[in-house]
């Protein structure tokens, strides 16, 4: 257990080398992958997410923590494939059209992956049609949209309306986030969820699918 706690702490500190080292040790000790993920990586990302929510940590710290988590995920992913653990849901993730900022989207993607989701990363500057085509192709449970700019935020509303017009809105849950986005805005444009930070986004995503969320 103490090893898992150290993994979590090192994720919070953003120390990728230490997280990698501790993960190797945990695997060698026969600790279960789900345990390393839940009690190590995700626990650490949730703590940094909470600090972020309280404005005691900022995007650079989140980036470092995410990098540390990724260093561990690289070791865990091959084992996950062989373990028979199935993804808990499929998320199509993109930064909306007119906005090319990838950091927030990537952080959310990493957290969702860690939480057991399969991610279809649509990239940045994603037009509504691309979201529509992806949902239409099937298998998507959640659409996640990100915007950093106030100037591109309205594209989230446009995309939701476009999904509605295409008759696909009811097929998926929609979660949005980004520096300028608020809970009120999410409600006003008819999104199903809002994540103030990457850790919260992963919890909300689980909750939207009726899985455990908003708890450690």
């Amino acid at each position, binding site marked *: 257990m103490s090893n898992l706690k150290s993994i979590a702490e090192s994720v919070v500190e*953003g120390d990728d080398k230490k997280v990698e080292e501790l993960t190797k040790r945990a695997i060698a000790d026969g600790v279960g992958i789900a345990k390393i993920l839940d009690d190590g990586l995700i626990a650490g990302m949730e703590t940094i997410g909470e600090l972020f929510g309280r*404005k005691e*940590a*900022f*995007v*650079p*710290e989140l*980036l*470092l923590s995410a*990098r540390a988590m990724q260093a561990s995920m690289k070791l865990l992913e091959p084992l996950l494939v062989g373990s028979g653990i199935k993804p808990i849901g499929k998320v199509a993730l993109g930064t909306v*059209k*007119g906005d*090319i*900022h*990838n*950091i927030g989207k*990537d952080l959310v993607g990493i957290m969702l992956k860690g939480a057991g989701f399969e991610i279809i990363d649509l990239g940045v*500057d994603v037009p509504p049609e691309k979201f529509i085509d992806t949902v239409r192709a099937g298998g998507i449970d959640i659409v996640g949209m990100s915007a*950093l*700019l*106030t*100037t*591109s*935020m*309205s594209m989230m*509303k446009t995309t939701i309306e476009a999904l509605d017009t295409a008759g696909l809105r009811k097929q998926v849950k929609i979660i949005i986030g980004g*520096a*300028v986005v608020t809970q009120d*805005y999410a409600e006003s444009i008819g999104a199903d969820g809002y994540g103030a930070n990457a850790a919260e986004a992963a919890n909300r995503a689980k909750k939207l699918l009726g899985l455990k969320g908003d708890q450690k």
Partner: protein
Amino acid sequence: MNAYASKDRIVAALKGQYADRVPATVMFGVYASKLAGFTLPQFFTDAKKHARAHALACETFQPDTITIAGDVFLEAEAFGAKVEFPEDSSPHLKTSVLENKADLGKLNIPDPKKINRLCWYLEACERSKSEIKDVPMSGACAGPWTLAGNLRGLERLILDTVDDPDFVHQLMRFTTAWIKVWVATVRDTGIGIGMGEASASCSVISPKVYRTFIKPYHEEIFNYFKERKLYISLHICGYIDPIMEDVLSTGVSMISIDSPSSLDKLVELSQGKAVIMGNVATALFAEGTKREMEAAVKQCIDTAAKGSKYILCSGCEIPLTSCKNNINYFMEAANKYGYYK
């Protein structure tokens, strides 16, 4: 008719004096192109059209000052970054020129007048100056951190602050040296200039990153130009409350903030030292009601106008989807609530 001209209002605000009312403006950005019926690629490559669009925005809405916005990747493109001009959104950066840190050694400060798109911008400023009468105007350039992020890739640059701080300082020294050249060149067209640091808000960086890697260079730039009697403004997008005191202590003479930041806090901290611009939420220009716009304008004026040194403004560039009515509501509200008592 108003007895006071726009210039009187702006000069009074800069000096901490009072004209008839609070000066008011909107950062029109790409909306100016839509208003004039130009495509965005035309707006961003044809100097004549760029100037005409801004002139039309002035004629239509009568702001007290106007920013002749280029695009945020203009300078990165001058250093070799590939920029794309989509029909329906602002230009995009396609490549970073410093994916490899060692390439910084190969970059040189160019002569701005030998770079096509910089010439386009200079011509747009010159044309605006001759076409727009009686409205003080300002150009815009990317700040040293924003340009550094556009050259290196912002995520990589943020990680560099931990992995290779010396490289970040080296890059910041380079972008700072460039800004000294570029600001002076834009200033030669006869208009003022503002520096935009879209990537320096706490929506992107931390106070520690600001203090260690950005603030020293902001100080250097402001001091350099102050010695030359040139005052440049600073706009930072997003949320900057945790770094407001630091930003004010750089010696900045005018600061423009976005709606996520607290106007109240800035007024309190500035104590009349810097002229403040801001910070009506840009979303209101696209989707707000008349009542919401009036309330937002009134709140800004009530918060910041009392001691002069304030220009009512949108928090950032307004969206392409903004509507004429909402900009009219903004200017009407400025006229309704902005008269000094």
